[in-house]
Every structure is written in structure tokens, then in C-alpha cells.
């Protein structure tokens, strides 16, 4: 969050303000990015040093060739710096220079390798830190944030956006620095050999820049169209592969084909424009290279004839001029990397700056005193996700230690919300929720939640083994605890029938398991964590009779002697509860025991007729096959 910006003096148009903002913000981004480099500053310095040395060595090759030509191959009087070290004998001297050349080559190899590796290492470490930081933050962010942000977008922050930043560190910044170094060293070498010839070569440089710029301009439009076309091809394919049955049902094949060919043609034509740009650019650059060579030869030729220049220098320049153009072209390319990296950085920082609302109190850290009593209290609780759309209205109730409460009601009555508030996934808008006589907001959220065993409506499984899914990451749960819990919830027999037993992997989040089996695994998970309280949101989907029987039995065993709140869909669960809370449109409308409520002939009676009565007669149902699925 950028927050209120500086310079709000009052004057200046809105537009001007926004432009100023952008700059400040970018600068902030860069400064903030730099802080990630800090732990690795030694490596960065080392890497920069190697890069500098490597750029320096680039200059050596042509210089050596100049010496070889001027001293031995076509001797002239003029001496070079190296003269005093080199043998006066021509063959020996040539060998010396060759060896020097070879040494420079090997040194260059070592430097470049070390530099690349150090820089990559730094980049990867930074990515590691950044990813860890984002992931940690995601583990703390409120559920409300998750409600309004698609999971896919968060995954992108953590993966693609971070990788783009990696580009910035390893390719962008370093390469720009390296290019600039190479350019300046070559310039220094050229000037020291022959300032006029340097000028002659430099005269081509603006043309190279100009041509490169023109090419980028031409290619930019084509590249944009290519991106659009690829996105459209993907979208069209995706849509038509998914909806091919509709295409065929409505005899639309030929028309879809024609439409696809149109998109496909746009793709091809955009590419052809890009090809044309490339096909013009490469020859143009090479032609400029030839121009440079001709300028060198003509001007150098004049000078050599006048005796002002040696042949060796001319040959050296021919080699240098080739090496000047590449960095100039590269520099433009890096601009794009910088741009997209800034955008990614902005998105990442925005996520990191999203404040966490639900967290523990500042001071009380240790388990709250007197909280051991297993009592739950809702005191005039109101809740709305947004504004005044109340999901819960003035709900109050108490669950005594060891008591089991069944919450019933129609879809949207607010049953699940009660559980979410109790676990502090959200904070109540008004009113208080007490656990063990202490407001839930005074607990550390993790501490609070670890007292609860929770089974959610959708039996969620992670990839991993069955044991992993029961244990989760709680290392204090031993194998025997897992087996015990599985035994308790009637899961053990099923697990024993699997080839891998508890180590049998759960494939694709449990697609190989039936709904009932997934429920039982979730039950075992809750039990294995040996909770003080039990929270159960019964699944609505029906399971086959045998599993149903197992689930029922497991449930009754779990709730015995534990303070439990169950959002119930099963008659058996409701009948076993000490008390039933009837929710309707966010309000607690009726409360009491099963028979008591039935006698009232109120809401509960109707619900009973609708949802639960059939469960009594199931098995003797007139349809004969199996209990009909509840109709929503």
C-alpha cells in the first residue's frame, strides 16, 4: 500500500500528482528490493569484481593480435608496452603472445564461470527468501482475504512473479552493468591505441542505436499482436475443447473451424510482421558492421600510407568494432526485463503489505488463565461479511463441559458461520464469544484452534499418505496414536485392506477414495489431535448404507464425553445430542431436546419432516432400492 503521498501541498493538477507518485513509488520499489541483497553483499561485491575483470580481459585478445602484427608479422619501429617482456626472436615472440592469448582465454573462462555462479546463487537465495516471506505471510493472512482473492492469483505471486524478479537480479542488472563495463574498457583500449580511429568507429555507433531503436519500435507492435493472438488461440482452444459437445450438438463444427482459422491467421500474420522486422534488422546491423569496416579500412589506409598508423592497430580495430555493437544492442533488451520486474515487485509488495487483522493480543502470550474449563459461550453475536448483510443476528447460547450440541437449519441459516467464528476464522462484528470463560480474541489464534478437533463439511485431503493426512504436521502424534484414532472411527479395517496400509498414498486429493472414506479419515485426524473440543460440520452428501453405519458409529464415539458442536444432517446425530439449536435466517429460533422440540410443532418439526424423517424409515422405503438422495 503506497499510502498517502508526500507533496500534498495543494497545488498542481491531479494528473501531475499521479505522475510524481509513480516515480516516488518506483524509487521505493528499488530501495525495498535492494534490502533483499543486503545479506548477500559479499557475494554481490565478489561477483561484480569478477564481472569487471572479465570485461577487462575482453580487451586483451585484439590487443595481443596488434602486438603480434606490429612487432613480428609486419615489424614497425613503434614499440608497445609489452615489448620489454617479449623475446626479440620472432618465432619465440609469436609463441609467447600465443600463450598469453591462451592464458587470457582460460582466465576469462574461470572469471565468467565464477561470476555467473555467484550471481545465480545470490539470485536464487533471494528468491528463496522472498518466497518464504510471501508464504509465511499467506499463512497469517485473514480468511476474509482468501474469500475475496482467487487462489490462482496468490499462487502466481509466489511463483511467476518471484521468478520474474529473479530475472531482474541475475540477468537484468548484472548484464547491464557488464555491458557498460565492456563498452568502457573497449573504448579506453581503442583510444589508447588510436584516438582518431576510435572516432571513426564511434561514428557508426549512433546508427546502430538508431537501427536498433527502429527495430524495437517495429517489433513491439508485432510482438504485442503475437501475444494477443497466442492468448486468443489458447482461450479459443480451451473453450472449444471443453465445449466440443455443444459445438457438435448444434452442428457448429464448420463455423468454429472458420473462426479458428481466422484467429490462427492473425497469429501467423503477426508473426510474419515480426519476421519481416527481424529479416530487415539483422542484415541492417551487419551492413552497418561492414560500413564500420570500410570506414576503418579507408581512413586507416590513408593513415597507414601517411605513416601515422600501424597495420597491427588497424587489425586490432577490426576486431574491436565487432565487439562494440553487441553490448549496444543488448542494452535495449534489458529495458523490458526491468519493466516487468517492477510490475511484479509492486504486486508482491502489495500482498506483503496486506495487514493481518486477526491475530493474538499484544501482551498475553501464555495460555490464558482459567481457560481450562471446557465451556463455550456465544453472547449476543452478530456477524456480517460485508456491511449490514447479517449472517448471524444476535445469537446467544452456552455449551457446558462435556455437552453435545446439534445445530440444525436450512441452507444459509448461518450454521457453518457459528463454527467459523468459534475458530476465529472471522471476528464477530458485535458481541462476544467465550471459550473457557475467556474471549477468543485474547488467545493466540493458533493456541485457541489447537484445542479444537475440526471436521469440515468438505472432507479435505492433502496429497501424501493416509498417515500424513491424519497426522498433518503434528510430530507429537505417533504411529500408535494414528492407529488408535483410526480404530476409534472404524477406519482401521479399510486401511488394513490397502496394499500400503497407512502409507498408502492419497491420489489427487482423494479422488481414489469414496466420500465416506474421506470423512472417516477426517474424523481420525480430529481424534488423533486429542482435542478438548470437537467441531463437526457434517457432510450433506449421502454415502452407501454400510459406510453410513460406520460413520454414524464413529461419530457417537467421538462426541461422548467431549464438548462438541455438530452441524448435523443425520437424525442419529441429532438424537444423540444433549440439545438442539434451530437456526433460521441467521437467528437462533428454537432450542431444546429432540422430543421437546417435536412437541412444539414449530420450525424443527417441519425440518424433521423434510430432512430427517426419511432416515427413520430408510431400509423399509417403498421405492425398494435405497434411500432417496435429499433434494435441494
Amino acid at each position, binding site marked *: 500500500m503506497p499510502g498517502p503521498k508526500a507533496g500534498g501541498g495543494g497545488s498542481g493538477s491531479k494528473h501531475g500528482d499521479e505522475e510524481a507518485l509513480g516515480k516516488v513509488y518506483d524509487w521505493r520499489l528499488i530501495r525495498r528490493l535492494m534490502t533483499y541483497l543486503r545479506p548477500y553483499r559479499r557475494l554481490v561485491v565478489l561477483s561484480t569484481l569478477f564481472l569487471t575483470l572479465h570485461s577487462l580481459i575482453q580487451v586483451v585478445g585484439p590487443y595481443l593480435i596488434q602486438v603480434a602484427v606490429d612487432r613480428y608479422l609486419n615489424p614497425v619501429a613503434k614499440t608497445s608496452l609489452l615489448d620489454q617482456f617479449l623475446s626479440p626472436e620472432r618465432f619465440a615472440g609469436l609463441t609467447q603472445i600465443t600463450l598469453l592469448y591462451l592464458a587470457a582465454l582460460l582466465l576469462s573462462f574461470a572469471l565468467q564461470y565464477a561470476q555467473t555462479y555467484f550471481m545465480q546463487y545470490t539470485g536464487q537465495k533471494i528468491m528463496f527468501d522472498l518466497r518464504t516471506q510471501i508464504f509465511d505471510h499467506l499463512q497469517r493472512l485473514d480468511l476474509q482475504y482468501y474469500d475475496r482473492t482467487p487462489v490462482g492469483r496468490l499462487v502466481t505471486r509466489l511463483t511467476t512473479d518471484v521468478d520474474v524478479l529473479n530475472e531482474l537480479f541475475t540477468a537484468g542488472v548484472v548484464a547491464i552493468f557488464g555491458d557498460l563495463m565492456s563498452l568502457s574498457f573497449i573504448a579506453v583500449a581503442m583510444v589508447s591505441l588510436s584516438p582518431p580511429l576510435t572516432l571513426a568507429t564511434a561514428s557508426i555507433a549512433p546508427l546502430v542505436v538508431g537501427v536498433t531503436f527502429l527495430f524495437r519500435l517495429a517489433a513491439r507492435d508485432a510482438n504485442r499482436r503475437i501475444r494477443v493472438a497466442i492468448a486468443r488461440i489458447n482461450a479459443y482452444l480451451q473453450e472449444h475443447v471443453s465445449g466440443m459437445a455443444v459445438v457438435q450438438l448444434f452442428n457448429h463444427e464448420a463455423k468454429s473451424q472458420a473462426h479458428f482459422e481466422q484467429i490462427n491467421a492473425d497469429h501467423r500474420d503477426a508473426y510474419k510482421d515480426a519476421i519481416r522486422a527481424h529479416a530487415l534488422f539483422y542484415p541492417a546491423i551487419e551492413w552497418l558492421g561492414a560500413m564500420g569496416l570500410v570506414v576503418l579500412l579507408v581512413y586507416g589506409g590513408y593513415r597507414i600510407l601517411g605513416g601515422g598508423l600501424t597495420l597491427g592497430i588497424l587489425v586490432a580495430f577490426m576486431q574491436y568494432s565487432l565487439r562494440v555493437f553487441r553490448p549496444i544492442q543488448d542494452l535495449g533488451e534489458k529495458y523490458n526485463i526491468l519493466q516487468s520486474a517492477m510490475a511484479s515487485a509492486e504486486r508482491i509488495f502489495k500482498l506483503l503489505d496486506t495487514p493481518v487483522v486477526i491475530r493474538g493480543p499484544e501482551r498475553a502470550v501464555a495460555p490464558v488463565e482459567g481457560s481450562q474449563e471446557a465451556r463455550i459461550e456465544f453472547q449476543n453475536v452478530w456477524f456480517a461479511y460485508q456491511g449490514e448483510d447479517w449472517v448471524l443476528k444476535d445469537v446467544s447460547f452456552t455449551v457446558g463441559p462435556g455437552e453435545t450440541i446439534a445445530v440444525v437449519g436450512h441452507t444459509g441459516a448461518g450454521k457453518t458461520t457459528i463454527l467459523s467464528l468459534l475458530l476465529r476464522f472471522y471476528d464477530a462484528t458485535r458481541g462476544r464469544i467465550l471459550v473457557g470463560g475467556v474471549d477468543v480474541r485474547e488467545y493466540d489464534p493458533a493456541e485457541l484452534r489447537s484445542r479444537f478437533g475440526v471436521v469440515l463439511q468438505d472432507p479435505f485431503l492433502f496429497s501424501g499418505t493416509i498417515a500424513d493426512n491424519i497426522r*498433518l504436521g503434528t510430530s507429537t502424534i505417533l504411529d500408535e496414536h494414528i492407529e488408535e484414532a483410526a480404530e476409534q472411527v472404524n477406519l482401521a479395517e479399510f486401511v488394513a485392506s490397502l496394499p500400503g496400509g497407512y502409507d498408502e498414498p492419497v491420489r489427487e486429493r482423494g479422488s481414489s477414495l469414496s466420500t465416506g472414506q474421506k470423512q472417516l479419515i477426517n474424523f481420525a485426524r480430529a481424534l488423533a489431535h486429542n482435542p478438548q473440543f470437537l467441531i463437526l460440520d457434517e457432510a450433506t452428501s449421502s454415502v452407501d448404507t454400510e459406510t453410513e453405519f460406520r460413520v454414524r458409529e464413529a461419530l457417537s464415539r467421538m462426541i461422548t464425553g467431549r464438548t462438541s458442536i455438530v452441524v448435523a444432517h443425520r437424525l442419529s446425530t441429532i438424537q444423540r445430542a444433549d440439545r438442539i439449536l434451530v437456526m433460521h435466517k441467521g437467528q437462533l429460533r428454537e432450542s431444546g431436546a429432540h422430543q421437546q422440540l417435536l412437541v412444539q410443532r414449530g420450525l424443527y418439526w417441519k425440518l424433521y419432516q423434510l430432512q430427517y424423517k426419511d432416515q427413520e424409515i430408510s431400509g423399509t422405503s417403498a421405492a425398494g432400492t435405497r434411500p432417496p438422495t435429499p433434494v435441494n
Partner: protein
Amino acid sequence: MLRQLATLWPYLVRYRWRLVLGLAALVCKDLTAALAPLVIRRVIDALTAHLTIQQVWRFAFMLLGLALLRGFFQFWMRWILIGVSREIEFDLRNDLFAGLTRLSPKFYGAHRTGDIMARATNDLNAVRMMLGPGIMYWADTFFIFLAAIIAMGSIDGRLTFFVFLPVPAVSFTVGYFGRLIHDRFQRIQAMFSDISSRVQENLSGVRIVRAYAQEEAERKQFRELNDEYIHENLRLARLWGSFFPLLEVLIGLTFVIVLWLGGRQVLRGSISLGSFVMFLSYMGLLVWPMIALGWVVNLMQRGTASLERINELLHQEPDLNDRAAVPDAPREIRGEIEFRDVTVQYGSNGNQSHGAALAAVNLRIPAGQTVAIVGPTGSGKTTLVSLVARLRDPEQGAVLIDGRDARQFPLARLRGAIGLVPQETFLFSETIAENIAFGVGDASREVIRDAIREAADTAGIAPDIEEFPKQYDTLVGERGITLSGGQKQRTALARAVIRNPRILILDDALSSVDTVTEERILNRLSSLMRGRTTLLISHRVSTVRSADRIVVLAGGRVVEDGTHDQLLAGGGYYAALYRKQLLEEELEEA
């Protein structure tokens, strides 16, 4: 491998003249490129001896002229050869799509969308790379080497031999490292998607993670994955880090050889200084082709592997076809439907579970009747109606339309007589008008505009559409408006109605529309569908009660069949359903 490549032959033949022209440009480009060092040689030699100004200028113009010619040919080479590869990509992709439109739901059940997409995009691109840059650089390398070897060999054969010694090493290095880098890169990609799905899972299961206070354990696990990922990345970095410097050394080695051996030749006087510089110039010219040689080998390997995957798709035989169609099948379809001993197995539709979806179903529906089909989830209702439109064929028995096996009609004619509104509404990201006119023709024509309005009216979606700013030209989907479930269903209904079908099938198609609106729509439909066959799947008693006939399916069999009153009296599934829904209505009013 050759058999796989054979697929490409017709496409290459189609562009043969352009290919020949492009290759000719390539040869000319290589020739002009190879001439330049010869000129440089003469310049240097002239400089060491005596030289006149006129000579300098003449050489300068020669070099510029050669460069100009070279650029000219280079342009045409690139433009033609790379262009042709894009043309072939275009053709191949069209043919792939055409193939896809012929494949049945069975195929789509067995193949993931992502996989099909990958073949039509990534794999196709790999093939394109093989055909474009692959062919071009291969030929380029071949000719430029040929020219350089001839020119250099004519000056000094022995020196040429030694200079070319490192060349195989360069190509081998590029090929070897290229493959290694590619493999490692793939591994990193795989790990990347591991991380993605791990994060995805953590975020989707955020409630469980929080409820069990597993944040710390999740962090630890993520850290481990993250650690492995950067570890793998660093292995790639080491490879990259050594690859380019190694390449530089190997190429530098050729210069070292020229410097040392060539220098000695100059000292001995057996070659001129100009020839020495010429050798240096040639080596400069050959740097890129040396690298390209190794690269091209990899392009070819990846290209053929991808082509194999594309061929699998291209050679797929459609299993629902017109092979059994008879020429004398009637042009018009009346709309009588009969299921005769129809059995359909699960599993053949990409479904995992086994057993019969429909077991020996016998049912005759006279033309013009409105039949409601009810039954619990998984009782075979959708399977039953999808047989009518031949979205699949029964394993045993037959579906008869107007007394003939449905397979005797050409697919297009059969489906043309049917308007089916599927359970899962699927609209395309086009305008509402185009979506409604999907099965009839160009939505911009005036006649069709009227029909669209009429159909929208019948389906009860017209008032909604007229509220949108752009009305019928409103885009549907991500780039446009998000329709509610009920609006989508009504649009899909309009899409079926506008075809004026002999057989209308609604597969639980108004489940998201409230009961009052639904009743109004059904009333309008019943007058429109007078004399036409209507199949109506629904869970709602209010929807089905007025049908001519109600069929109850359970476990793939017909268990009840009769009118509303008859079934109520029967006291079976339908009667129970009726009672429950009455209660539900009461509760809603509470």
C-alpha cells in the same frame, strides 16, 4: 522416426517452390558472405606493399557492395524460409482443430484439456522450430562451411585443417550441453509445478491448516520444497555458467591456432599478412554456424518427439461417425424415439466406476409426447438423453428414431433435428446474440435477429438481456458480463429453442431458475412444442407434473412410468418426492 516425419511431407510439398527460392537466397547469401574476407586479404596485402587512393576506394566499394548483396539475400532467406514454417504451422493447427471437431465426448473424457492444448501449442511450436530455424540454420551452416573451407583451403590446406580442429568440439559441446540443459530445465519446470500445486493445496485447504494450527509445519514443508527447487536451479546455473565460457574458450582456440600456426606461416613467408587476417575474418564468420550446428541437432530431436505427439492426435479416428448411415434415410425427422434393450456401461465414457449406467432399458416415446424423467442422482437420466443426440452409442441394443436405428441417419441431420439443453450450461465467450444463434447461423443477419429475440422471449431471458447496456451484443464470459446461473440456463434454452427442433431435450436445464419463472417458461414452451417431442429431466415436481407422462429411473432401469396422478397413487419414489417438496415450500414461507 521417418514414419513420424512423413506427416510433414504433404505440407512441405505444398510450399516447395518457396522453399527452393528460400534455399537459393540462402546459398547466394553464403557466397557473398564468403567473398568478403577475400577482399579484406587483398586490402591488407596492398597496405603492406604500396597502395593508391583509387585502390582504397575500389576495395571500399567492393566491400560495401558485397555487404549490400549479402543483406539483400539474407532478408529473402529469412523472410521466405521462416515465413514458410509459419504457414505450415498455420496449416497444421487448422488440421488439428478440424480433427478435434470430429472427436466424440468419449475422447474428451479420456484426454485432459491441458494435454490437448499442449499438443496444439507447445508441441506444434517445437515442430515449427524444426521446420523453420532448424532447416534454415542447418543449410546455412553447411554452405558457409563449404565456402569457407574452399576459400581457406586454396590458400593453405594444412592451416585450414588445424583451424577446423576445434569445430566438432564446439558442435558437440553445444549439442551435449543443450540436451543437458533442456533436461534439467524440464526437471525444474516439473518442480515448479510441484511448488505451484503445493501452494495451491495449502491455500485451498487454508481452513484445515488454520483449524489444526499447522502453519508452522506447512512453512517447514514449503521451505524444504523451496530449498530443493533452488538447489536444482543452481545445478542448472552451474551448467549455464560453464557452458558459455566453455564455448568461448573453444571458439577462442580457433583464433589461437590462427595466431600461432598462421603467424608462423607469415614469418616463414609462406602466406601473406593479408591471408593471415583473412583467416581471422573467416573464423569470425564461422562462430555462429559452429554454435548453430549443435543447436539444430537438438531442435530436430525435440521436433520429432513433438511431432509424434501431434500425430497421435491427427491420426485419431472419430468413434461416432456416419459409417452406418444409409442413403435413403428420410430428410425430415418426425420425432418418435424408442429405446430397445439399451445397455450402456460406465467407464467407457472416461468414468472411473464400473457397472451399467443403463441396463436393458425399453421405452417408446411417440412423436409429439412430452415425457418427464425423474430419479435419484446417478440413475442414468443424462445417459439416456445423450443417446438420442448420439453423444454416445449404446453398447447393446439400439436407439430408434422414427423406427430406424439412429446410426442410419447422418450425424449432422440427426443433431439438426434436436435441441438439447445440457445439465451443465456451456456458453461461449461471444455475444449473447451469437450464443443464441449458435446452431442456426450468422447472428448479424436481420432475419436471425428477429428469431433470436423470439427465442429469448420464449426462454424468458429477453427482459434480462434488454437491461444490459449493449443488450444482445453483450459479451458473455471473462471479457464481458458474468451471467447468473439462471440467466445462463435460460440463454442455453433460447439457443436450443431457436433451432425449432423436432425433439427438445431439457436435462435439468432450469434448476437455477425460480419455480414461478420456470412455470411461465414451460407454459410458453408447451404451446411452441405442440406436436413435437419433449424430454424433460428435472428434480422438481412442479416442473414435471404437467407432462404427458412421467418416467422414473433408478439404477439404470425404468421403475415407474405413468401420469402424475397415476404415480402419486402408486406411492413410490415419485410420491415420496412430491410429499417432501410440499413440505419444503411450507418451510420456505416460515
